[in-house]
C-alpha cells in the first residue's frame, strides 16, 4: 500500500497516469461511440491548440501586422524567416521580462510554500474555530483577479494604508512609491501573487499533511522522535509528491501572471514590472507587433513545455519505482 495511493494522488498529466486497470475489451460499437463522444472536445482542441499553434508559427515567420492593411492569411507576402525569433531572443526588454517573471515566480512560490506549509502544520491539530479559520484564510483565493488588482491598487497608494501601517512599525513617515518606483513595482506585483495564492498552497499542503498516517507519527513519537525529527524523517518524505505537485501547479500559474500585474502597474514604470504576459500584451496591443509577439509566444510555449516535463520527472520516477 503506497502512501501516494492513500492521498488519492495522481499527478496531473498522462506521463504519470496510473496504469490503466485491466478491463474487458470493448467491442467495435463501443469504440465508435467513444470516438463520437470525444469528437466535440477534439474539435475544440483543434480550435484552441492546433489552430493557434499552426497560425502562430506561420505568422511568426513573417513581418505581418494588423495595421498593414492586408489579411493575416496573406502574410506570406512579408516572409522574413527567423528574424522575429532572432529579434526576440536578443531583445533586452523581452529577456528581462523573462528573468523578472522567473524571479517573481521563484520568490512568490517560495514564500507561498513557506507560509502555506507552516499554516498547514499548524492546522493539522484540531483547535476551536479551525473550520471557520480555514474558510477565512481561503478568501483571498476566491477573490477574482480583477478585484484583487484593484484592492492592492488601493492599498499601495503612496498615502494608502500599507505605507501608514509601515510607518507605525518602522521609524519615520514612510511614503514608498509602490506603483511608480521601478524598484518597488515588481515587489508590488509579487506581493499580490503571494497574497492571492498562498491559500491554495495551504489548501493543497493541508490535504497532504492530513494524509500522513497518524500511526506512523505515533510510532515515531514513542521512539522518542522530536517534532523536527518527525517533520524531517516522516512527514516530509511522505509528502514529497504532493509538495512537488503544489509547487508545479503554482509555478505554472505564477509564470502566466497577468491580471493583477496589468491592473496594478501596466508593467510600469517603463518596463520595470513587466512580466512575460504583460510584455506580450503590450507588444501586441500597444505596439501592434503581431508577428513578433507570435514568435515570442512560441518561444514561451516551448520553454514552459520543457520546464513542465522536467519538473514532473521526480514524480514519474517515484511512481515507476512503486509500480
Amino acid at each position: 500500500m503506497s502512501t501516494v495511493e492513500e492521498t488519492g494522488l495522481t499527478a496531473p498529466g498522462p506521463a504519470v497516469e496510473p496504469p490503466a486497470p485491466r478491463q474487458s475489451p470493448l467491442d467495435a460499437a463501443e469504440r465508435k461511440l467513444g470516438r463520437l463522444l470525444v469528437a466535440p472536445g477534439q474539435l475544440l482542441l483543434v480550435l484552441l491548440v492546433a489552430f493557434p499553434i499552426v497560425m502562430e508559427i506561420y505568422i511568426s515567420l513573417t513581418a505581418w501586422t494588423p495595421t498593414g492593411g492586408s489579411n493575416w492569411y496573406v502574410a506570406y507576402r512579408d516572409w522574413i524567416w527567423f528574424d522575429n525569433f532572432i529579434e526576440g531572443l536578443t531583445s533586452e526588454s523581452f529577456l528581462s521580462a523573462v528573468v523578472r517573471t522567473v524571479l517573481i515566480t521563484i520568490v512568490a512560490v517560495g514564500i507561498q510554500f513557506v507560509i502555506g506549509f507552516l499554516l498547514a502544520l499548524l492546522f493539522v491539530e484540531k483547535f476551536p474555530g479551525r473550520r471557520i479559520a480555514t474558510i477565512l484564510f481561503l478568501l483571498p483565493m476566491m477573490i477574482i483577479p480583477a478585484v484583487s488588482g484593484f484592492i492592492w491598487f488601493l492599498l499601495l497608494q503612496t498615502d494608502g494604508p500599507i505605507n501608514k501601517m509601515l510607518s507605525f512599525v518602522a521609524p519615520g513617515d514612510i511614503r514608498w512609491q509602490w506603483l511608480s518606483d521601478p524598484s518597488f513595482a515588481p515587489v508590488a506585483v509579487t506581493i499580490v501573487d503571494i497574497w492571492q495564492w498562498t491559500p491554495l498552497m495551504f489548501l493543497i499542503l493541508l490535504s497532504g499533511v492530513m494524509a500522513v498516517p497518524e500511526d506512523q507519527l505515533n510510532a515515531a513519537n514513542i521512539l522518542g522522535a522530536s517534532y523536527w525529527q518527525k517533520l524531517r524523517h516522516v512527514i516530509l518524505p511522505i509528502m514529497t509528491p504532493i509538495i512537488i505537485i503544489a509547487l508545479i501547479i503554482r509555478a505554472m500559474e505564477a509564470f502566466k501572471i497577468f491580471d493583477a500585474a496589468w491592473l496594478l502597474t501596466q508593467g510600469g514604470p517603463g518596463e520595470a514590472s513587466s512580466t512575460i504576459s504583460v510584455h506580450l500584451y503590450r507588444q501586441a496591443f500597444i505596439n501592434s507587433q503581431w508577428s513578433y509577439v507570435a514568435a515570442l509566444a512560441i518561444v514561451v510555449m516551448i520553454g514552459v513545455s520543457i520546464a513542465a516535463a522536467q519538473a514532473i520527472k521526480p514524480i514519474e520516477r517515484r511512481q515507476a519505482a512503486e509500480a
Partner: protein
Amino acid sequence: MAKIELENVWKRFGRVEAVVDLTLDIPDGSFIALLGPSGCGKTTTMNMLSGLLQPTSGEIRFNGEVVNDLHPGKRNVGFVFQNYAIFTHMSAFDNIAFGLRVVRKQPAETVEREVERVAELLDISHLLEQRAADLSVNDMQKVAIGRSMITNPGIFLLDEPFSNLDAAFRAYMRAEMKKLQRELRQTMIYVTHDQVEAMAMADHIAIMDLGKLQQYGTPDEVYNSPANRFVAHFVGSTTMNFLPAELGATDGSLELRLPIPEARPIVLEDGSAKLLDEKGERGHTLGIRPEHLELLDPANERADARGTVLLVEPLGARNIVHLRAGEIDFRVVVPPTIRPRVGDALGIELERKYVHVFDDMTGKALR
C-alpha cells in the same frame, strides 16, 4: 525492566467513559494480556501506558514514578501497532534503525551492529535492503517489532500485533514472542481479543469489558474461577453452558433445581448453602463448561438429566455434542471416540466440582 502500577485510572472522551477506575499492578518482567471484546477500553489503556493519551484522572506509575504527563518518547517503552505503522517510505533497515540513528544519534557502526543483531533475532536479515512498503504483512510486523526492540525498552506494549497475520504465522509468532520475552525479561503487555492467544501466552490476564476491569488473574484462575458471568462467557474456546436455576437448601447443602422435566436437583454439599442466606430471592444462573459434563447411558442413575442429541461437531481432537433436555440446550465436549448419532437419547452428569453459580442481577459468581 519496570514494574507498572495503574491506580484508579479513568479516561473520558467527552461523555464516553473509555476506561473506568482501573487499578492494576504489573510486576517487573511479567507477561500480561489485556483481554476483551472490541471497545472494552484495552487499546485506550495501552495508549495511556505508551503516553499517546493522558488519563483523565488517576495515576500511572513506572517503577513507582508517576508518568501521567511524561512524553511517550521518554517512557522507554516499545510499541507494536496492530497495523504495523512502519515507515513505508523507508527501507526495512532504516525503519529498524530509526530509534538509534535518528533519535539517539548513535554512530553508524553501532547502528549497523544493533540492526543486524535485531534482524537476526527476528530472522529478517535478508530483507533489510528492501523498501518496507514492498514487504509481506508478516515481514512488516517483524520489522515493526524490530523497530521497537532496538532501543531495549523496559516495557513492551503490543496492540493486537498478530491479528492481521495468517493463522500459521500467528501461531509461530506467538511462540517466538514468548521465547523473546523469556530471554529479554522485559515487562510485556499484550492486547488481544482472542482468549486462546491470551491463555497461551500470558502469565496474568486482565479481562476488560465496557471500560471496567472484570478480573485479573492467572490463566488458570480466570478459566477455573471466573469472577463473573462475563469472564466465564468470554474465556474458554467452547462457550460455557448457562442454565437458569432455582436455589434452595436442604440440610445445609445448596440445592440447584433446573427447569428440566425429571431432572435431579444438583446438590452441592460443600457449605455453599450460606450463599442462599445472603442472596435471598434473586434469580440465579448455573454455569458449567462443556468439558465438565459427562455423557451417560440414559438408564444410568448418575444422570442428572436426560436429553436427545441435536448435532455433533467433530473437531478431530474432540467432538462437541449438542443436546436438548426439555427446553435447555447443552454443549458437551467429549473425546473423539465418543460419537453419538443425532436423535440418540443420552444422560448428562454435571461434575459438581466445576459448577458455577452466578447472580442474575449483578452477574457476579457466587461460586
